[in-house]
């Protein structure tokens, strides 16, 4: 447990807790951004530059902005009543998920053995893997995302026509 890890863990968990507990939706989104930045810091701390920077680029730069935009475009100033009638079910589901993750981490950790030293040209390896070995999955994912994007635009267009 090094000092950077502790600081980043506190930032990440603090952001996550704040994102769940704050009352204003925009505050929650900003807290979520803090959580994502903390996670990116953890990746960087583990010498995973690519993953860490993409985390910031995609999650802070795009996903949180998207959330914020969605909140703004569907603005309700009155706070939604938080009922929490499903507290028991929620606790049950989160306990099951946590148990599953904990089992996976503890079971997987034994197989991994000692931590591998960070390779120097990690960026180049990732690029090579994405462009050579995994180029087909990459293209498929790209196609899927494009289809989703076009689908979203088409749905939005139809609504506009009706409004007129």
């Amino acid at each position: 447990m090094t000092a950077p890890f502790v600081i980043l863990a506190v930032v990440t968990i603090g952001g996550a807790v704040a994102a769940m507990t704050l009352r204003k939706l925009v505050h929650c989104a900003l807290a979520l951004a803090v959580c994502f930045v903390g996670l990116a810091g953890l990746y960087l701390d583990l010498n995973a530059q690519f993953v860490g920077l993409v985390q910031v680029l995609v999650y802070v730069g795009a996903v949180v902005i998207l959330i914020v935009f969605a909140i703004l475009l569907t603005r309700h100033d009155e706070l939604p009543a938080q009922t929490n009638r499903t507290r028991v079910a929620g606790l049950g589901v989160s306990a099951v998920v946590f148990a599953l993750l904990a089992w996976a981490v503890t079971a997987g950790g034994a197989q991994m053995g000692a931590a591998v030293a960070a390779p120097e040209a990690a960026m180049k390896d990732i690029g090579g893997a994405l462009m050579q070995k995994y180029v087909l999955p990459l293209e498929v994912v790209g196609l899927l995302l494009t289809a989703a994007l076009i689908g979203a635009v088409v749905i939005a267009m139809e609504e506009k026509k009706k409004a007129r």
Partner: protein
Amino acid sequence: MTQGLDQIFVTFQHWAVAHSPAAVQPAVSIVLPVAGILILFPSLFAITTVLERKGLARIQNRYGPNRVGPYGWLQPVADAVKSLTKEDIVPRTADKLVHFLAPVLLVTVVFLEYAVIPVGRNMVLADMNSGVLFFFAAGAATEMSVFMAGWSSRNKYSLLGAMRAVAQMISYEAPLILSSIAVVMAAGSLSTVTIVEKQAGYSGFWPHWYVLTPWGLAGFVLFAIAMTAESNRSPFDLPEGESEIIAGYFTEYSGFKFALFFLGEYLEMFAVSGMAVTLFLGGWAAPFSFLTWIPSWIWFLGKVMTLIAVFIWVRGTLPRLRMDQLMNFAWKFMLPMTLMVIFSAGLWKFLPSGVLRWLICAAPIALLYVVLGRVLQSERRIEKRVYRYAE
């Protein structure tokens, strides 16, 4: 002599580290370059504000600031004193914490971008494996700050400005990153230092900059347009649009916080200009082989200031775009063009060098330019303007 002058700051850093106690040596070696960045670019900002106001004034047939100091050169000092002593007004209904954090976040994030920009030979703060990626990741966080400022002010105009700004920045981030991908492909590295090194060397006295290739030229122009939009400069200054929405997302800021926004905007401009210089204009390298005796950092700053001069010129010349024009331009013109630039850069890499390679690589870009121009023009119907609400 020239070698010494070229490396004067590096030598000074080594000297300072060697003459400090062993316990603080790592700290000194890190803090010194950071201090250099913190001093250099804000002072460049101060100079640029005067230059810009004077330049714009000349374009508009007036004198510009000429009262404070000789020829008005001490204007930034007066501005700084003014913004420091002005009352800091926070609207009563504003979200106080977010309102305070927004300018701080902007300046912090923009300073982060300087970490990977090589200012001179051996003069880069962090030679990262993924420097270009780091630059854009840090830049992505500026959108957050703009949104925070606009939302926390509780002002319609601020919110409108923030929404415009975020929409614009997201749209132009795509061509910005895509046009830099062409350079990353050609250099085979994301590290800014390696990219500059790959452009080193001369054929005769002619440099090997990427801007001197067909895809590089097109990429540079697209990058320059996208970075103007990213830094919210005119003609892409819709988020501020003082004649439409007062001052956009920083309407409710006054005193030093306003100055911080101003500083952040200019620093962002320097940072993206520095990135453009690094990616396309050979970084700190001299433009001709017989000019290599001039120190590398002078070349870098000279190139950045040249780009800034173009920015000022463009600001004084072009009118502001409309929102739909802005979006159409980003998605219908910039995006296909950058994709074609990437394709052309790929061709360039595999073809044997010669005049034919030049023509083959330039052809698809020119073709797409013409086709896009024709198609987009034919879509545009010029007819009598109809007002929907103002009748």
